[in-house]
């Protein structure tokens, strides 16, 4: 059991402009029951709650952990109360504030609904200009579109167990976001030897060269812990769209931007020159095993 049970944490889950995807993703957490047992839920958009949105919006209560899902739109109201007012009221006393999803972290998908005014809680993409800037010390960003349930499970468990959560410069827990989405992909060997996927819908090849995969530039543990305990985008042939980064959503998701057939962006922390040197060498080899089909159903029987 990952949690201490002596003290219940009061938890409040509010929403800005959202698709509810983070709420639904969280419901998939395998140890959801344990987490819920250790918390008093003041309000959650779909789980049984101690309060109604009507009482929450009177701004007379307080919570230990404030969770916010969705883009912050300064003109938005919940039950006729400005979301900004709700946020500032509950943020003041909360010990921790968790932004779930890229919308709440950086603006994300629904920043585009009103680009001039919408943002995340602390960040507007990477600029420090969100409504909870003054409380930024307490804010943990769990970026992702949506969050992986384990990321919130981890964060709540760490809080319950009174362990310190170390974060990066974008306030993301480093134990979750130091990895790249590329780590653990079943196509890693193709990446190393620069063998691209000829087309979508194949087991073979890497999606970085032509199909738009951003996993080498994206901080996330998707391919380490897997989604729904079973798979990941890249394992099932879909490129990583970089949904945990402040610049999500970008454009042309299924195509790599290239320069003289070399990807424009190279893996995080690797200089373009080193990358080109290694790539140039790797490409000179023709490795039959990597150029063939992994499984040949036609001749196998």
């Amino acid at each position, binding site marked *: 059991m990952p949690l201490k049970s002596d003290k219940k944490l009061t938890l409040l889950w509010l929403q800005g402009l959202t*698709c*509810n995807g983070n709420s639904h993703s969280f419901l998939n*957490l*395998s140890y959801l029951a344990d987490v819920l047992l250790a918390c008093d839920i003041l309000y959650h958009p779909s789980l049984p*709650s101690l309060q109604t949105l009507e009482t929450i919006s009177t701004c007379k209560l307080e919570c230990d952990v404030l969770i916010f899902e969705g883009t912050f739109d300064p003109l938005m109201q919940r039950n006729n109360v400005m979301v900004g007012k709700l946020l500032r009221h509950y943020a003041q006393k909360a010990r921790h504030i968790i932004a779930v999803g890229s919308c709440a972290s950086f603006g994300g998908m629904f920043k585009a609904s009103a680009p001039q005014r919408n943002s995340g809680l602390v960040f507007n993409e990477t600029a420090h200009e969100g409504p909870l800037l003054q409380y930024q010390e307490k804010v943990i960003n769990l970026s992702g579109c949506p969050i992986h349930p384990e990321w919130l499970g981890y964060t709540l468990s760490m809080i319950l167990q009174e362990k310190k959560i170390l974060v990066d410069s974008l306030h993301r827990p480093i134990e979750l976001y130091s990895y790249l989405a590329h780590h653990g992909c079943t196509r890693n060997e193709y990446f190393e030897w620069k063998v691209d996927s000829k087309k979508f819908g194949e*087991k073979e090849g890497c999606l970085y060269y032509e199909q738009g995969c951003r996993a080498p530039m994206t901080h996330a543990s998707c391919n380490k812990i897997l989604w729904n305990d079973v798979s990941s985008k890249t394992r099932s042939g*879909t490129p990583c769209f970089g949904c945990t980064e402040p610049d999500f959503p970008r454009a042309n998701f299924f195509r790599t931007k290239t320069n003289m057939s070399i990807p424009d962006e190279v893996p995080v922390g690797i200089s373009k020159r080193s990358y080109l040197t290694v790539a140039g060498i790797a490409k000179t080899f023709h490795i039959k095993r990597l150029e063939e089909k992994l*499984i040949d159903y036609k001749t196998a029987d």
Partner: protein
Amino acid sequence: MITKQLIEQIEGEATVHFTMNGNTVDFATVAFPHFRGMERILQGKNALDALVITPRVCGICGHAHLMASVRALESAYVHMSQDIQLSTKAQMIREFTLLMEIVQNHYKWIYLTLIPELGKLMPLSNMSTPLKGAFAASLASKALASFSGQWPHSSYMLPGGVTCDPTHMERIKAQSYLRELIAFFENETLGIDLETFLSFESCKEIRSLSSDISRIEQSLLSLGMHEKGFAYDRFVVFGNHGFSVPSKMKQTRSYSVKSKYVSIKDSYSPQEKTFAKNALYKNDYYETGPLARAMTNSVPIIRNIHRRFKDSAYSRVVARIFEIASLLQHALELLKLMELSETSLTMPEPIHTLTAEGIGIVEAPRGVLIHKVSIEEGLIRNYEIITPTQWNIGSDTKESLTPVQLAMQGVTQEEALFIFRTFDVCSVCTTH
């Protein structure tokens, strides 16, 4: 006097404004206050980007949006006389993942919406926890993600097929999650095995059980929900799948449907600003969703229930729960028949060669979902989304009530709020 009621714990937020006539509802209007401008966000984007953006319309039925999007793009290719070759394998995988999303939706609806709402109207003993709903939904998502990579928000369908190329290993894993889910459904919800349940032809047989479903059925009866919540007794189904037949139905007679007769109309909501629009067929309102699908599919038990209780709140609820059973069985069948040596995807001409209009229609958990796209040299010129809640939960004047407005008329306010939820409201989809 008009009273306002905030509807919480649906997908998003809604309000209903009631005009009462003594103790009963004379007229009610519905408002959906939040708006994200999805259609505008899509304008000017690479048409393939719709496959990443539209699933984000909705966290609970994003997969249905993905499928509507990919069908819209494929239809645009076909309109440009470019062949789209979908292998049987790709079709089956798409259908399987769509089914699993519907199942997780219905499961959550039973345990996170229906049971708590029933509990507000009457004491419920022995009724189980919301965690049951979450657990079953997570099993469905595992089976789904075995092909789609993840749920929510997968983008694994592309024009011409699917991006995954699974081995039998993934298929067998999905089978084992599905079997676990079926066992859970049998033990925790039905109290009888799936096959016997599917052979039921009358609600008396449901009553003979002792389980969540029989307790739900009993509560509905004792609340008189078989005599309340009637809409127009007109149904519409548009999505073409192995589990649905496109047609419209007036009472029990069915007719063919054409998407060109679908139209959109502004909502009537004098008390509060709303961003929703109503969907109509040949200028009439129709109900869509599980009850409509069961009626047009001639599911014996639902036809029998309908004979006695018409399109009451009771029929609507039972149809949604029964649909889980038939979809689970259909899903098993698909996994058994799936042939994996076929190609996953046949790439059509590059997207920038495409200048055409397309339409994609699917059955989402709550009913008909339509995406219309107009593309110019691979870029989206215009995108239009019509969601199931726009059919069921529109808001119009007293002279032309929408299905939900009609269903709430003549009952108490408390009952009306329950009936409202029997349509399974999705506010985020409605005001996309």
